C-alpha cells in the first residue's frame, strides 16, 4: 500500500516540503528535483515582482504553497492570500502572521482569524503557528487542512526545540502536523518524522549549505528514513536501568 500524505484532498508521495527563499531562482529546479519535492512554498513578493518571478522557475507539476509573509494582521494575510489566488498560485495557502521582527514568531490569535476567513473562502489553509494545543484546536475548528508548528525560530537551524509540544499536537490533532521552521539538518528532520509528524518543511538549512542540491537530497532521504522508522514502530528506549530477569510480579500464583 502506498504511504501517501493527504492535504485538502490532494495526495503527495513526498513528505519534504521546500521553502524556496534564500537561494537563487535558477537553482529552484535542481533543488526540487534532487529533493524529490512535490510541494514548495513561495513568498508572494517573489511571485509578483515585475522583474523576476519565481513562478517562471517552478517545474510543472509542483504544488505551490504561497505564504502570506509580510502580513502583520489577519486582514493583511487574507489580502495576500487572495492576491496569490489571482496570480494563479492555486488554492493552497500557508498563513503566516508575524508581528515580531526580531524572532519572527507567529501570532497565533491572528492566524486563527485568518484561517477561518480563508477556509470559508475555499482555500486549503495551512497555518504556521507556535505549537500550542489550544491554538491548534482553534485552527482545526476554523477549517485548517494541516497545522504547521515551528520547531525553533525561523532560520535559526536550532532543530526541534519545541519537540514535546509538537508531539502533543501529533497525538491530539486529527490533521497532518508539519514541522515548519528551525530544522537545521537532515538528522533533525528524520527525528521529527520518527515522532509521527506528517511532513517537514525546510529552507534555510538547504539554502545555506555549500551544495544546495546535495543538501536537498540529504533531506529527502532523511525524511523518508524517519517516516519508515515511524511506520515500523520504534523499539522501546529504557531510561536508565536494565530490566530485571525475574519480574516483580513473579510471586503471583494465578
Amino acid at each position, binding site marked *: 500500500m502506498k504511504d501517501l500524505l493527504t492535504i485538502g484532498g490532494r495526495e503527495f508521495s513526498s513528505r519534504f516540503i521546500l521553502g524556496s527563499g*534564500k537561494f537563487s531562482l535558477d537553482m529552484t529546479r535542481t533543488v526540487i528535483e534532487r529533493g524529490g519535492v512535490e510541494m514548495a512554498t513561495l513568498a508572494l513578493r517573489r511571485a509578483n*515582482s515585475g522583474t523576476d518571478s519565481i513562478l517562471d522557475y517552478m517545474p510543472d507539476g509542483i504544488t505551490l504553497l504561497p505564504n502570506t509573509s509580510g502580513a502583520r494582521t489577519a486582514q493583511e494575510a487574507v489580502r495576500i492570500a487572495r492576491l496569490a489566488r489571482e496570480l494563479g498560485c492555486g488554492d493552497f495557502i500557508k498563513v503566516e502572521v508575524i*508581528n515580531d521582527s*526580531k524572532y519572527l514568531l507567529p501570532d497565533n490569535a491572528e492566524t486563527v482569524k485568518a484561517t477561518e476567513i480563508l477556509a470559508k473562502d475555499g482555500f486549503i489553509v495551512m497555518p504556521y503557528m507556535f505549537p500550542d494545543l489550544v491554538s491548534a484546536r482553534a485552527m482545526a475548528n476554523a477549517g485548517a487542512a494541516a497545522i504547521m508548528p515551528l520547531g525553533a525560530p525561523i532560520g*535559526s537551524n536550532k532543530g526541534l526545540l519545541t519537540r514535546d509540544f509538537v508531539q502533543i499536537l501529533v497525538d491530539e490533532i486529527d490533521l497532518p502536523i508539519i514541522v515548519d521552521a528551525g530544522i537545521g539538518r537532515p538528522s533533525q528532520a528524520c527525528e521529527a518524522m520518527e515522532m509521527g509528524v506528517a511532513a517537514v518543511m525546510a529552507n534555510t538549512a538547504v539554502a*545555506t549549505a555549500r551544495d544546495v542540491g546535495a543538501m536537498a537530497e540529504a533531506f529527502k532521504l532523511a525524511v523518508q528514513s524517519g517516516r519508515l522508522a515511524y511506520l515500523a514502530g520504534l523499539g522501546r528506549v529504557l531510561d536508565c536501568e536494565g530490566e530485571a530477569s525475574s519480574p516483580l510480579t513473579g510471586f503471583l500464583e494465578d
Partner: protein
Amino acid sequence: MVAELLQELLSPEAGKDLERLARLARDETRRWFGNSVSLYTPLYLANYCDNHCTYCGFSCNNDILRGKLSVAEIEAEFKAIAATGLEEILLLTGESREKSPPEYICEAVKLARSYFRTIGLEVYPLEVSEYADLHKAGADFVSVYQETYNRELYAKCHPDNTPKSDFDYRLGSQERALQAGMRGVSFGVLLGLNPDWRKDSLEAGLHAARIQRKFPHCEISFSVPRLRGSVATELTERELLQIMAAYRIAFPYAGINISTRERAHFRDNVIGIAANKISAGVRVTVGGHSGGQSKGDGQFALSDERSVEQIKSAILSKGLQCVYTDYVLCS
C-alpha cells in the same frame, strides 16, 4: 544584553580580529537573508534647506544650485527609474518646510505608488499626523539619522535657531513614524563627525534596540554614511566594516544599507558580508535620472556611479540574487 555585546563588537580589541568578525557577520547575513540583496535608488525631490549644519553640502550657507522638482518632473524621474527594473524608491528632501512642505512630499508619494512597490522617506522630522498622512499615501519606511548622539557636539554642528537644532525632536522621529503606522525605521550616525565613532555607533544601536522593544513588529535598519575628504576623523574602510559587522552580529534581523559614498569594490564585497541592501543607479542631484539637466547640486560626492544593470551584474557575479521588493501590500 545587546548593549554589552555591541560594545564589545565595536571595541578596538574586536577590531584587531576583523577577519573573525567578518566571518561571523557573513554567517548571520546568510542565515537571515540567504543570498538575497535588496536594490533601491534614492531620488532627491528638492535641496532647499533652512539648516546650516557645519558638515553638509546642502547647508543654507553654501552657494549651491537650489531646486525642486515639479510634479511633472517627479513623474518623469519615476518613469526613468522604474524602467531600470527597480521597485523600491527612497524620496529625499532638504529641511525646508516652506519650500518642500509635507503636502508636497505627500503628492510625490501618491505618484510614486503607481511606479513602485516600496516607498521610503528620508526627509526632515515630522509630526505623528504628518507621518500618518504620508503612510496613508503609500510610504512605509522612514529614515532619520541622528548624525551624532553626543549632545554637545550635536549643538555645535547644528546651530541654534535652525530647525535641526532640536536634538530631542529629531531623536523622537522613529517613534512618531511608528506611532503613525510606518512599517520600518532606519538609524545611523554620520561617521567621522564624532571622533569617538565607536560610542556614537553604539548609541545608534541602542536607540534601535529600544525602539524595536517598544514596537516589536517594526523593521529596523542601519545606514553607515561615512564623511569623506576634509574631515578631522575619516574612518578607514576597516573601521567601517567593523561597524557593519558589529550591527549584523548584534542585530541579525536588521537591514543594513551601503551607500554610494563608498567605492564600488568595497560595496560589492560588503553585500556578501554584512549589508543586505544596496542603492543602484544613484544620482544625488535634484533630478537627473530622466536625462534632463539636474535642478540642484548634490549633497555629497558619489564614489560609485554604476547603473542599475551594472550593480545587478555585480550582485549576480558574486552568487547573490537581486530582490526588488520585500512587500506585497502597500500601506
